[in-house]
């Protein structure tokens, strides 16, 4: 009799405690957040610290003993010509492609704002590059830029733009290869930027456009003095994503040129891969990849600033 009452009492208290916990918001929030945060700390925070540690060590793929070597890796990197070339390529590719993306995305988003027949099909087609795995899209471009069968060259020749002895080797000549990488990056990021800017454009209340109309603002004034300032914050968001995805990307270079000819199209990310994984120099690779970090931190700070400013207004 007493045991029955005891068990009964116990389950009741247990139930009671659980329901009190479930009602206590602070406990509940912690319990719901903890798994996600723990996972992120373990799988982003810890490897990041490990990366910092490797960059000041002599870790290799094969070696088991890891020793502290101070700033030796960084000295080695900064003394290497490939580093400066990679850094320059990374910056040039990012700046040029993102400039083009912002300009083109604004034009395309404005064109998509109007209603027209077949809009859904146009939207599906322009989204393809963003949705398709970028490594596969880049292979499509590898075929388009092929040294012998390039369709660009064939078309240009058929249109009379190329003479009989001109046949640019897109991926074989450093400047053309860099141009090709920029084209593929623009191709890749443009859909995302367009969709983000389009969302910004559609959120401008019609009243504002009507008022501008009444005040007699022409197309260009309307565009640059009213629309552009209003979508500036969201354009900045699109730009920041574009910078991050381009600056840290290694896929386009990996697929198109593998850094060649003679490392002239290497970017920081791809050079880190070839050094750290294929070359087996984990410490060197980790140190190289850390050169991406200052820019990312800068972009993150800008992000926060944009977010705060957008909240105030």
């Amino acid at each position, binding site marked *: 009799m007493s045991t029955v009452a005891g068990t009964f009492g116990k389950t009741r208290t247990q139930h009671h405690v659980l329901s009190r916990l479930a009602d206590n918001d602070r406990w509940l929030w912690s319990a719901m957040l903890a798994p996600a945060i723990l*996972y992120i700390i373990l799988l982003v925070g810890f490897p990041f610290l490990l990366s910092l540690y490797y960059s000041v060590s002599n870790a290799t793929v094969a070696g088991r003993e890891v020793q502290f070597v101070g700033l030796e890796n960084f000295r080695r990197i900064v003394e290497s010509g490939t580093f400066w070339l990679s850094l320059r390529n990374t910056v040039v590719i990012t700046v040029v492609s993102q400039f083009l993306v912002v300009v083109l995305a604004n034009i395309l988003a404005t064109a998509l704002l109007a209603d027209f027949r077949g809009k859904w099909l146009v939207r599906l087609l322009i989204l*393809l590059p963003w949705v398709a795995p970028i490594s596969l899209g880049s292979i499509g471009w590898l075929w388009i830029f092929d040294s012998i069968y390039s369709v660009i060259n064939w078309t240009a020749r058929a249109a009379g733009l190329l003479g009989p002895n001109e046949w640019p080797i897109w991926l074989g000549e450093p400047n053309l290869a860099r141009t090709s990488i920029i084209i593929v990056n623009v191709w890749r990021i443009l859909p995302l930027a367009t969709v*983000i800017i389009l969302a910004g454009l559609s959120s401008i209340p019609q009243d504002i456009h009507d008022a501008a109309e009444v005040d007699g603002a022409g197309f260009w004034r309307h565009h640059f003095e009213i629309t552009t300032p209003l979508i500036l914050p969201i354009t900045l968001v699109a730009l920041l994503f574009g910078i991050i995805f381009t600056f840290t990307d290694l896929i386009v270079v990996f697929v198109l040129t593998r850094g060649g000819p003679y490392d002239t199209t290497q970017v920081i990310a791809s050079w880190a891969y070839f050094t750290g994984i294929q070359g087996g120099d984990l410490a060197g690779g980790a140190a190289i990849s850390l050169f991406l970090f200052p820019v990312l931190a800068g972009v993150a700070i800008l992000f926060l600033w944009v977010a705060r400013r957008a909240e105030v207004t």
Partner: protein
Amino acid sequence: MISQFARGRRIASRAGHAAILIFFVTFLAFPFYWMAITTFKTTQDLHNIQNNPYVFHDPPTLRHLSVLFNDTQYLQWLYNTGFVGVIVVVITLLLAVPAGYALARMTGAWAQTLGTAIFLTYLVPPTILFIPFARIVAALGLQDSVWSLVLVYPSFTVPFCTWLLMGFFKAIPRDLEEAAMIDGLSRFGAFLKVVMPISTAGMLTAVIFAFTLVTQEFVYGVTFITASSSYTVSVGVPTFLVRGDVYFWGSMMAACLIASVPIAIIYNFFVDRFVAGFTGGSIR
């Protein structure tokens, strides 16, 4: 006279609009069109420079598709991608749904800070983390196994989906849970029985985007896996099929096309919600 001028202007502006759209559609969709044409051309036709590449000189062929499916491990790669994708999606939902809800309903300054911090971790790219991960994966004995990808991929799907779901839960009125709580449910009970059932659309969005992120990932895949039977599609095609001097362009283009287009079509239905989630927290 005036009306004719106005009509002329309207036609010109329509033509300009169409020209802009045609230019962009051509630039953005051309590679996929090119993949499709190449898939069905005979090798002989592809390798004759004299031929106009836009038309078929030999009748279309299915040979490249048969090579892709019979002589390469493409089906295995598709299977690996799906397998990793499904498990990662499940892990992501288990972690991100509660976290997103907590962040949406927590009050106080730190909820905002924490939400932003989680979003910022999404911006830490694989290109900074792949080297330490290579060592961790080796230490766990997971190299050349798809389980290494299952372990690592949530590191970017969880922050992203938490952020996406947080915005989604914020849009659901608090009154709903409060009414349920007055009726005797706990907060957690209200979340399970009231909020979850009406959130299927938001969760479906998170599922699609987590899955897409997995199919796109390249850096970890190429770093951890060297055995071709464990590749995912996005790693297998560029590393295994692009090797040596002979390029099987027809089969390669088929491989790219088949893995790209179905996802694009599904994605198209969710893109508006995706943009709202992507920009939501940082703009609203």
